[in-house]
């Protein structure tokens, strides 16, 4: 089936395999109908909707952090910009909710380019620390620019007109679907190969004709836009936003954690990480709120020390135990984008190939 998708003449873009497509469609349909069929309580229903948004945000962070290998500690900046621009547009011009989110997202993407274009030429720790600066500077400006953000007293969104909190579940699902589709497209198309090349060695990538600046700018713009839209969704969900929450360092941390828990650079992993993150947040930490930072810290340390690929790595290990072996062409550094089974294997192969 997969081989046919690659070598045969089926008219699907090469990054889509029929097997994955069918599985994805079934999953989306199940999630779409679940609230209509299953007796979910209001609380659970809403939390699942919010989880969709977090999944989308984690994936968006992962485009930059996982596919390009540029760890951003400043994604709260775009989350906040998206949320506040969307809220302001809805308040001032009565813009429909979804248009407001999109506008907020685009502004956030533009903002990401503004700081990202100069800083993305930095690699590794240099870029990461610069993003800490971006996040902190944006938070400071947002907190003191009270004409726009309402300062420390925040901003309330219009109550009527938009989708209700109950309906936001489906909007969250659409957001997630968009994020997953973009993720697979980024991972499996030619762009994915270019990004992998940049991640492995920028200079070598540039030598073979991959323009690192253009690709990285593009991914950052996409990532910033998606996180901005998520910020808009969050603003609608909460119906009240304040800069201390939207721009907080903890929010940047949460995107990193979701991706790291699930498995940096994977698609399914990052979504799974978001689920784990929300479960921890809602069910464990509601009772131990003073422990949450430390718990996240310990989780990070344990994952990095024992399973740097997170949940995806665990899954891979489990499959190896049951006799599964990744394809040889992946291990040999072959065209990783054409093996359309699960993407964990190509990531694992990347990790194995990295120098000791």
């Amino acid at each position, binding site marked *: 089936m997969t081989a046919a998708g690659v070598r045969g003449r089926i008219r699907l873009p090469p990054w889509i395999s029929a097997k994955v497509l069918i599985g994805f469609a079934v999953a989306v349909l199940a999630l779409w109908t679940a609230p209509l069929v299953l007796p979910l309580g209001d609380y659970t229903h809403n939390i699942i909707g919010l989880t969709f948004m977090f999944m989308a945000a984690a994936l968006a962070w992962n485009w930059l952090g996982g596919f390009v290998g540029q760890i951003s500690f400043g994604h709260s900046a775009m989350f906040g910009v998206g949320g506040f621009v969307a809220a302001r547009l809805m308040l001032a011009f009565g813009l429909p909710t979804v248009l407001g989110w999109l506008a907020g997202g685009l502004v956030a993407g533009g903002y990401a380019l503004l700081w990202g274009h100069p*800083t993305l030429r930095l690699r590794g720790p240099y870029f990461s620390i610069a993003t800490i600066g971006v996040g902190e500077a944006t938070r400071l400006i947002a907190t003191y620019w009270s004409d726009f953000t309402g300062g420390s007293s925040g901003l309330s969104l219009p109550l009527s007109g938009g989708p209700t909190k109950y309906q936001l579940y489906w909007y969250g699902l659409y957001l997630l679907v968009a994020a997953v589709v973009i993720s697979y497209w980024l991972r499996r198309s030619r762009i994915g190969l270019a990004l992998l090349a940049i991640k492995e060695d920028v200079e070598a990538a540039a030598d073979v004709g991959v323009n690192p600046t253009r690709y990285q700018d593009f991914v950052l713009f996409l990532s910033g836009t998606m996180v901005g839209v998520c910020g808009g969704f969050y603003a609608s969900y909460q119906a009240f936003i304040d800069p201390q929450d939207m721009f907080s360092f903890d929010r940047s941390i949460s995107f990193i954690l979701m991706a790291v828990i699930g498995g940096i650079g994977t698609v399914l992993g990052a979504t799974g990480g978001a689920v784990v993150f929300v479960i921890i947040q809602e069910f464990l930490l509601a009772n131990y709120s003073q422990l949450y*930072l430390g718990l996240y810290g310990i989780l990070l*340390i344990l994952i990095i020390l024992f399973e740097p690929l997170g949940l995806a790595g665990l899954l891979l290990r489990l499959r190896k135990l049951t006799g599964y072996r990744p394809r040889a062409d992946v291990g040999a550094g072959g065209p990783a984008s054409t093996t359309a089974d699960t993407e964990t294997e190509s990531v694992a192969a990347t990790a194995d190939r990295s120098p000791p």
Partner: protein
Amino acid sequence: MPEAFTLVISAVLLAGFYAAMAYGLGLIYGVLRIVNLAHGGIIMAAAYLTWQLFDRFGIDPYLAIPIAVVVFFLIGVGLYLGLVRFLPRGPAGAVQSLLLLFGVWLVIRNIVYLLFTGNDQAIQTSYATASASILGAHFSVTRILVFLVAALALVALHLLLTRTYLGKAIRAVAQNPDSCTLTGINVERVYAFTFGLGTALAGLAGVLASTLFAFNPSFGASELLKSFVIIVLGGLGSVLGIALGACVLAFAEVFSIYLVPPYLTTAVGFVLLVVVLVLRPGGLFGQKVLR
């Protein structure tokens, strides 16, 4: 020009503190190629240690320096042997070390929060409000003392790195760890010592910071950022490079009051970082190699 003169002296005093603060980060990066993201957390923890020593046992912050240095040296060695040692070297390890040490930072913050709550703390010594006059302008004694201690520490460190066998070994490992194993240097031990030394310096900076600023468990984020700005400006090179980088940052921050509102001084450092990294990726002075 009395005002400008006051500002210049303020900037120099501030630069001394900044240099001591940044050196620990620069040392660890220069030798291990790891950015110690827990740096800010260590500074914060050291400030709390100083505060406890002062509050419970009446130990003056400046007398607490040797205690803090020893304690944080041991903590640093412990961090290296317990965690950092297991990370892969090279580019693959860079991302992992960032995330790991970030986790350590979160844990430190949480421990401090559990022990001492999230309230702001400050150390009120008897001489906290005393001031001394330099050529007609008045400066707080605390800031002058901080400058002197920081300068002393930097000189001591410079001597350690340039005049002792151990310092030679550290510099050799920074240049080429593989050749060092051939010449019989225990590279792992040098790494552990360097990580301890860098952490001890962060501890020293924390003690000094506790006498200058109020602090709470989230203290340290902007200190980490500033330290990083300085090592980038200074080019991760010698003590001199770090001192120059600290001066550039301190002067930019102090004189920015003419241009931007005070709450944006953190952003000044960041803008400086971006501008320098874009114009001179190797830093303002010299290369990114610990010489």
